């Protein structure tokens, strides 16, 4: 059974399932279905040997059921389905019947809305690739890791997302993606972190990456330096910048958080604070390929400028926030009121974040740093004071002390505690010219689709506390 046959079956099955369910809706009922599908090979490894390995097939449908004419009662359910249409139809009909019964007991949700349902906003995006066969992946991965202590996970397979609505909307996205997310360890328990991901497996590209990573291990074996808490000139490699950008999805860029007054972006909105004019953050679905549609049928623009040269331009606005805060609304062709958000998901999190590159050449990073910290990767960031943009976290993989523009030694781990307004503001010297692409490795609940694209960042100083 070829990959393309699987994808075609899944899409047409999803469409068929949706249409059958739509036929059974009662007056003034609206139904949206969001499909999550994957067929994934997983292989977890440690000490360059296979730990847990297996294959996960998963199919889930999220139902969003609304009843009403201009205001609605809303009930949601996400249900595992088998992939066999007849059996799944019965299962979902039972679930909808329960939702219908439950709605009788609940009050109207004043902020529930229908998705924008112009048919022209339907979409289809099918990304095909050339994935390695499982056995081939095993052979190549462990051949390249020979003699190394490698830990990590290989994941590979098809992922699909679909959205279908009773008012006529249909979106489809599928991709074939592999990822080798791994770290290499020295005898002294220090490590560097790497990821090889994409849609087309290239044996020589993977081999080159591992060779380069292998050659960098020697410096990790040097005796580590223990630094005192204090402020240090710092270079944040792209993976470290990545860690900060992920924090923007935690109550920062969402309109609701700003209106609730616990987002540090509220200071940007009132012009009481600003970022460096060198900092521009956007959502860019051309660079970070993934579905533009969300689980409620909203469609994000291809690009959305959030911070432009240090100033706040847009926030992420879900349909619910647009409704709650009285933002722009429109009537659909069918005559139902629909609020137009900017396609953000319900949690108003970044899905395709990109930071604009700067002028710092890779060859000039160490000389530009001079004396200070080179931080390849950070760990376990959390807010110490979210309202003021203060974040704490730890240094982790491949972090070094640099002196005279040369890497001297790895460092013992350090805790930092500093603010977004310093890191992307007053202390920002420049971003690198080169950016790095990171595929989302998260597999909580199901394998996630997503990516971000960020450069490295040179700072005048960053505060370390422990």
């Amino acid at each position, binding site marked *: 059974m070829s990959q393309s046959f699987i994808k075609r079956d899944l899409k047409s099955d999803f469409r068929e399932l949706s249409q059958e369910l739509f036929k059974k809706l009662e007056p003034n009922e609206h139904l949206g279905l969001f499909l999550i599908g994957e067929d994934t090979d*997983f292989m*977890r490894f*440690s*000490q360059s*040997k*296979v*730990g*847990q*390995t*297996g294959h*996960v*097939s998963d199919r889930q449908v999220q139902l969003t059921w609304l009843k009403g004419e201009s205001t609605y*009662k*809303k*009930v*949601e*359910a*996400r*249900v*595992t389905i*088998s992939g*066999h249409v007849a*059996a799944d139809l019965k299962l979902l009909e039972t*679930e909808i019947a329960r939702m219908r019964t439950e709605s009788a*007991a*609940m*009050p109207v*949700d*004043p902020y529930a809305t229908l998705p924008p349902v112009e048919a022209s906003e339907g979409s289809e995006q099918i990304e095909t690739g050339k994935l390695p066969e499982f*056995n081939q992946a*095993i052979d190549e991965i*462990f051949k390249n890791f020979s003699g190394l202590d490698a*830990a990590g*996970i290989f*994941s590979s397979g098809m992922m699909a997302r679909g959205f279908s609505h009773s008012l006529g909307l249909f979106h489809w996205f599928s991709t074939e993606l592999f990822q080798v997310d*791994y770290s290499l360890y020295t005898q002294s328990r220090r490590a560097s*972190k790497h990821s090889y991901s994409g849609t087309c497996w290239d044996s020589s590209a993977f081999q080159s990456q591992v060779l380069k990573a292998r050659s960098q291990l020697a410096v990790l074996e040097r005796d580590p330096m223990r630094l005192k808490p204090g402020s240090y000139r710092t270079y944040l490699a792209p993976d470290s910048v990545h860690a900060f950008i992920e924090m923007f999805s935690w109550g920062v860029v969402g309109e609701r958080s700003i209106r*609730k*007054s*616990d987002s540090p972006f509220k200071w940007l909105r009132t012009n009481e604070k600003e970022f460096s004019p060198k900092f521009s953050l956007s959502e860019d679905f051309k660079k970070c390929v993934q579905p533009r549609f969300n689980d409620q049928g909203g469609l994000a623009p291809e690009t959305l400028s959030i911070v432009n040269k240090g100033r706040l331009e847009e926030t992420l606005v879900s349909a619910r926030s647009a409704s709650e805060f009285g933002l722009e609304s429109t009537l659909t062709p069918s005559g139902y009121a629909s609020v137009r958000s900017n396609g953000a998901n319900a949690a108003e999190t970044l899905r395709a974040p990109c930071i604009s590159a700067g002028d710092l050449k890779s060859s000039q990073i160490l000389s530009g740093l001079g004396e200070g910290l080179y931080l390849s990767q950070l*760990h*376990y*960031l*959390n*807010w*110490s004071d979210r*309202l*003021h943009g*203060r974040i*704490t*976290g*730890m240094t*982790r993989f491949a972090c070094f002390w640099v002196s005279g523009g040369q890497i001297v030694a790895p460092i013992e781990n350090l*805790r930092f505690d500093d*603010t977004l307004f310093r890191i992307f503001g007053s202390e920002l010297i420049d971003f690198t010219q080169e950016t790095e692409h990171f595929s989302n490795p998260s*597999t*909580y*609940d199901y*394998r996630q689709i997503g990516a971000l694209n960020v450069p490295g960042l040179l700072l005048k100083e960053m505060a370390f506390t*422990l």
Partner: protein
Amino acid sequence: MSSLKELLNESLNKIPASERPEWVMLREMRDRDQTWSMRDAHPDQSSVVDTRGFFVEVLAQGKRAYATVPAMGFAEWGSQATAALTQAIEKATSRARYTAKVNLFNETIEMQPIALGAYRTHALSHADSAKWLSLSDLYAMLAQATEAAKVSPNVLDASALFRRVDTEILMASTHGTEVEQFTTSLQGSVSVTAQGFGQCQARNAFFDLQGGPETVQSFQWVTEAKRIGEEAVELLTAEECPTGVMDILLSPDQMMLQIHESIGHPLELDRILGDERNYAGWSFVQLEDIGKLQYGSSLLNCTFDPTQANELASYAFDDQGTPAKKEFLIRAGVLERVLGGSISQLRALQPGVANSRTSLWSRPAIDRMANLNLEPGDSSFNEMIASIERGVWMQTNRSWSIDDFRNKFQFSGEYGKLIEKGKITRTVRNPSYRGVSTSFWRNLKKVGNLSTTNTHGLFNCGKGEPNQVIRVGHRSPACVFSGVEVFGGSS
């Protein structure tokens, strides 16, 4: 129960004997997770997440491998289930055979636990659903709580949530395991955000327990909502937590994160063995520390206890079929035992506990915390306060961060009270502290008695590759720690 065993046998029998794996376990898991919430007296969420399927695990040539089949049990699917499961066994067997040459640990059939039995959440009759609140009463109760929290115009946002997770796990293996476990896990919370005076502060009150209707009704929704509304407003004009090295008194709802991050995770044996290095991290604990390491002061007694009836991670067997019982992990401050399931124990040649658990039908079992508790001591709350010359009493965790070896941490609470010369004086906001696990626990100065103890839990402990988020329980008294670096928020 015989139907799962029969299904396993029927599926396996379709494979020629020479091609079968040496051992197969079939696990059917269903998790029905329902959440209802109100925000400012309007419905915010009414959702169900119903995940289920079969997890097939095989042993072939000493290698374990798995494959999954999504959705519904045999009763709903009929003979199609057999065909799908046969394919899954074949796929898993093929994976196992090919990776046996690079196997991390060679397993045998004799290593696999054999378990027979059942478990059901204590004091909950599944047949007596009439005692649960009706949906309309539930919505009314949640709305009332959000209204009660709005004690002043400074309260911007108030929400109330009730969540119920019903989990069924059935397991059957080719060499005799037959287990069924049914749990009902409940979460209730009231949350408030207050704004004013250039500040924004949040307060939460919650419960996270296994239980039944009585659990929901015993939580004082309106009283708690009012209390946290008042406290959130109070925080707006409170002074910042002072900076300095001093004693701290931690309430159980802050202790739970302290225990979780700086005892639970570092003691997970798969972490100690290095399996989590690429994601969740390693541990400062090494195998040679077991039985020797002075983890904390002599007041520190920490147990793995699956027998607490209402705690989130109580069960009779772990998800590999090992019978679960209470064990001391740390006794009088000395590390005695670590959190490792049957296979990790064999790899490390160390005793462990029944903690091999999965969070989802499509994930393999890995070493997890379950119920990880600090045993009560002798000190009353008043004695603990009186013992502090200058310090801060911190309640309700709001921020947590720790390094990948589980040593350097930083935590923050929502609400603090200054303690001066043995008396509680005034409220402080953004109470925070940082430290190093090994020295922090050795500075455990006082452990509260049973009257200071409370049972909490977390629904979202994350680790593993592929990732898993699981429920854990933490029962703890209030505790005093000396010589801790304390600080407040930004001005």
